[in-house]
């Protein structure tokens, strides 16, 4: 007996294969989203943990000007230090044959025995340097890949004005530079910034650092107080130009990676939650309607003697088939998307192994939730059918009691054609169903906006950073504090139109019990190439005395305009001042304090700058870059154009994948809702629509009624989708905010329109499938008993 029912289940499924496929795809996209985002998050986290463990990533870092080697012993004796390493680290310009754009290398010394204890190098290709051979280097893999270097190649570095030819013997990765940024720009640029490991002797010799070090990294003993260790280090290094020790959480690369993983966690929780809810919801709605359509069949089965249980089991089998079909597609899709996302991350996070891993528990969760939603939808409908006596259920459902809609009673009906009234009254008589349909489609729009808004936010940040904040073409940093007169020399370099000099001092700001290390910027009066702006892009003028603070810093310090706070300079003679807060800036990115350059120099009792911005004649860029490379005090050169290009390249692929995936999902959801709504309408009203055909209505005219219903649903869903989408974007951004970064909520009108266009198009395509069904309808059946 059950066998025959199984056959029916199979045939029923086959008979509605288009519906089965569209529902299965909705289920699949929910499961895909869950698996892809959660597993990507897990994979990143695993890769980070593994690399940090294997590479013995340090807990505390400190940079200083120069300390003799014996100071190391003193540092090692600090209570709570498990192991400590000192080294020489220095940035130097690189010469790459046939290239005008500058590149900077960060050179890190390798101890004489060739063994790095902390932040261990992971050799990817070639070998470690031989300390006996002074001209060997291991090159960071990211830089090598971006610039086409391989072991065996040569590169020239400008160390203290001296050209040094180096042989690349290997490519490596370090947990310290998973996210390889120099600190000069917030965006990684593998083409222009590379890490190099070089024998200590060679580096020390070139930099006149023999028997000395300028960088310390250490691992804490279990249970040690990081704060106390940092204080001890700062005390010891104060006399050696210590720039202030800091923990792993403030280490640039680690902070970027950890923030990204945290943000990924937000989207990994939020997006699958949305998806799975949407797909569960749709599944529930669609399944309950399908069963509603089968009511007379169910009654017949009951009349034949099948019990509720075996009928339920029958439908359970049908639903399981749909859910598991979707699950199979979803798991495959999830793994595929996850792999793709991991590959995108590999573009800016340099892990030795970022293997995508599927967590079976997540797959089981996804399938389970979908299945549950389907079962709840199905049993709701089944219960309604079971409550009826078989004889009653075999009769067609009681016809709906149509009435004129409210708007019609208000006299709006004169604007509606008769077929228009059919459309509106059918939507109005089932307000719950109509509402659910609208909500379903608006969810698709919402998901689309989640996928597309990144593009706007990133474009906005790009615009804010590079067109508003940073109006220069080329930025240079000096190796150390440099007299302002150096700006004249720069001003006379070929192609320079204007030049501005700035000063950045590492400082510790204090108030009451709170202290924080940050940067104090000095900007010249009337600066044009660099500005301080609030989040409304209003320019903030600097007071003649006192400092302006970013809002996040002012909040942490508890400082308001007019309040005084302490500033301890971490370089040179390390003066300490009391400074008045001259203003608070509500900005997007970064923590900073800024002062008028002259005021800052007065406090420092000198007249120096640390960096400069140039506005240049674009035609003479190459000439200028060549000239800049020959100026000995210049430690780094940043070309804005290249930075933008790199940013677009790395973020571009990320945004593309994200947008493509979510667009695909949203299209699936739109088709799922619209097609299934229209299909159910068609099944319920075949007889009515056929009657119209018999009366002489063309296929087109009949199609327009169903298409009209779909169009009304879609058009009502669009504004709702905008609201939901924008709300969700806000929520997601709010959850992703970190200490230093707040994302602007910026959604372009074109994004609203594009998202709407995709949904409308998907709806339209779904109705085209319906059209094919209408074309195949058998007219004669309309004259028989209504079903």
């Amino acid at each position, binding site marked *: 007996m059950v066998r025959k029912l199984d056959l029916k289940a199979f045939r029923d499924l086959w008979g509605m294969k288009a519906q089965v496929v569209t529902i299965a795809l909705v289920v699949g996209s929910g499961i895909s989203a869950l698996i892809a985002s959660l597993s990507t998050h897990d994979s990143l986290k695993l890769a980070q943990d593994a690399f940090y463990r294997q590479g013995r990533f340090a807990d505390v870092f400190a940079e200083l000007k120069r300390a003799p080697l014996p100071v190391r012993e003193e540092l090692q004796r600090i209570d709570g230090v498990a192991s400590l390493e000192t080294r020489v680290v220095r940035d130097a310009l690189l010469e790459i044959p046939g290239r005008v754009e500058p590149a900077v290398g960060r050179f890190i010394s390798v101890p004489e025995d060739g063994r790095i204890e902390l932040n261990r190098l992971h050799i990817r290709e070639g070998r470690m340097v031989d300390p006996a051979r002074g001209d060997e280097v291991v090159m960071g893999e990211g830089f090598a890949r971006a610039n086409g270097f391989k072991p065996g190649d040569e590169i020239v570095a400008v160390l203290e004005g001296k050209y040094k030819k180096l042989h690349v013997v290997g490519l490596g990765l370090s947990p310290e530079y998973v996210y390889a940024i120099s600190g000069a720009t917030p965006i990684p640029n593998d083409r222009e910034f590379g890490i190099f490991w070089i024998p200590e002797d060679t580096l020390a010799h070139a930099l006149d650092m023999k028997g000395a070090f300028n960088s310390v990294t250490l691992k804490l003993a279990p249970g040690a107080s990081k704060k106390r260790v940092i204080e001890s280090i700062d005390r010891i290094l104060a006399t050696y130009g210590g720039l202030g020790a800091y923990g792993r959480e403030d280490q640039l690369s680690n902070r970027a990676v950890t923030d990204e993983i945290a943000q990924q966690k937000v989207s990994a929780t939020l997006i699958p939650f949305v998806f799975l809810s949407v797909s569960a919801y749709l599944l529930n709605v669609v399944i309950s309607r399908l069963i509603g359509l089968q009511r007379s069949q169910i009654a017949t089965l009951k009349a034949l003697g099948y019990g509720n249980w075996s009928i339920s089991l029958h439908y359970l089998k049908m639903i399981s088939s749909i859910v598991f079909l979707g699950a199979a597609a979803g798991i495959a899709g999830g793994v595929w998307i996850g792999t793709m996302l991991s590959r995108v991350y590999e573009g800016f996070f340099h892990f030795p192994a970022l293997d995508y891993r599927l967590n079976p528990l997540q797959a089981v969760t996804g399938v389970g939730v979908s299945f549950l939603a389907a079962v709840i939808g199905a049993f709701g409908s089944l219960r309604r059918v079971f409550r009826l006596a078989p004889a009653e259920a075999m009769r067609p459902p009681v016809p709906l009691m149509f009435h004129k809609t409210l708007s019609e009673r208000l006299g709006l009906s004169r604007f509606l054609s008769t077929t228009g009234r059919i459309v509106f009254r059918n939507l109005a008589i089932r307000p719950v169903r109509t509402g659910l349909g609208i909500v379903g489609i608006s969810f698709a729009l919402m998901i689309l906006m989640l996928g597309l808004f990144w593009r706007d936010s990133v474009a906005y940040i790009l615009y804010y950073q590079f067109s508003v904040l940073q109006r220069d073409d080329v930025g240079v940093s000096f190796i150390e504090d440099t007299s302002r007169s150096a700006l004249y020399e720069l001003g006379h370099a070929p192609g320079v139109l204007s030049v501005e000099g700035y000063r950045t001092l590492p400082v510790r700001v204090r108030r009451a019990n709170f202290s924080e290390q940050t940067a104090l910027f000095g900007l010249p009066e009337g600066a044009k190439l660099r500005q301080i702006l609030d989040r409304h892009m209003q320019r903030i003028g600097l007071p003649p005395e006192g400092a302006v603070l970013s809002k996040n810093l002012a909040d942490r310090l508890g400082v308001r305009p007019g309040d005084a706070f302490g500033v301890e300079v971490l370089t040179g003679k390390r003066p300490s001042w009391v400074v008045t807060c001259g203003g608070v800036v509500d900005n997007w990115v970064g923590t900073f304090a800024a002062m008028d350059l002259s005021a800052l120099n007065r406090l420092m009792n000198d007249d120096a700058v640390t960096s400069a911005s140039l506005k240049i004649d674009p035609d003479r860029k190459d000439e200028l870059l060549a000239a800049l490379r020959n100026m000995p005090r210049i430690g780094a050169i940043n070309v804005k154009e290249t930075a933008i290009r790199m940013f677009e390249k790395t973020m571009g692929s990320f945004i593309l994948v994200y947008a493509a995936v979510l667009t695909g999902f949203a299209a699936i959801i739109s088709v799922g809702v619209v097609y299934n709504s229209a299909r159910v309408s068609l099944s319920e009203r075949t007889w009515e629509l056929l009657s119209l055909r018999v009366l002489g209505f063309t296929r087109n005219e009949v199609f327009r009624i169903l298409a009209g219903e779909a169009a009304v649903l879609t058009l009502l869903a669009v504004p709702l989708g905008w609201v939901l989408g924008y709300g969700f974007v806000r929520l997601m951004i709010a959850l992703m905010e970190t200490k230093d970064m707040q994302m602007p909520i910026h959604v372009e009108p074109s994004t609203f329109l594009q998202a709407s266009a995709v949904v409308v198009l998907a709806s339209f395509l779904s109705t085209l499938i319906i059209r094919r069904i209408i074309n195949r309808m058998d007219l004669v059946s309309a004259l*028989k008993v209504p079903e």
Partner: protein
Amino acid sequence: MDRTPVFSAKGLTKTYTMGEVEVPALRGIDLDLYDGEFVVLLGPSGSGKSTLLNILGGLDTPTSGEVRYRDHNLREAGEEALTRYRREHIGFVFQFYNLIPSLTALENVVLVTEIAEKPMDAREALKLVGLEERLGHFPSQLSGGEQQRVAIARAIAKGPDVLLCDEPTGALDYQTGKMVLEALQRVNRDLGTTTVIITHNAAIAGMADRVVRLGDGRITALETNAKKLKPGELSW
């Protein structure tokens, strides 16, 4: 009465293929129907009367033979031409009324006048079937007889040349059935619309000009009534 036939069928056959079985529904029909005639097609179920009506109404096409409506060759007509043909020339009345549930009585009639070339006033049509008081009611608020009369009003409102009625009283009780037949007779008499009714109710034959008896896919008898009865005079 004009003797040029409105409909002309010659050697009409229709065979349905159901899987591997061929079921002949019409086995060679020769029939002419004339302008203004009131014809009853009488026969038991399975006699082929519905198939014949469907072919005349452009809902189905014959397997072989000729069928013409005036100068239209219905056998050769494609789907679009048949839709236009139904739209312009034919009014249908069905056993189950086939009203649009979401439209009121008046709107059901207007629906058709909107697509007709020379329609009559929708209210006029409803008045003709005695429903001028029920214009704003939805089908679910009307009795079966009332619904069928709305269907008749809808069929005549577009000013069809032919009214084709498939068991118009099949779902109605005796009294209501008679009211519906009266409405049909009035339409035929007042508007001169050629009317074809198919039924298995032999009593209805009394109100026809001609009666076509069908059995097993063939015409078994063609009778002309010397005296047409009023629906009130019929009994079954």
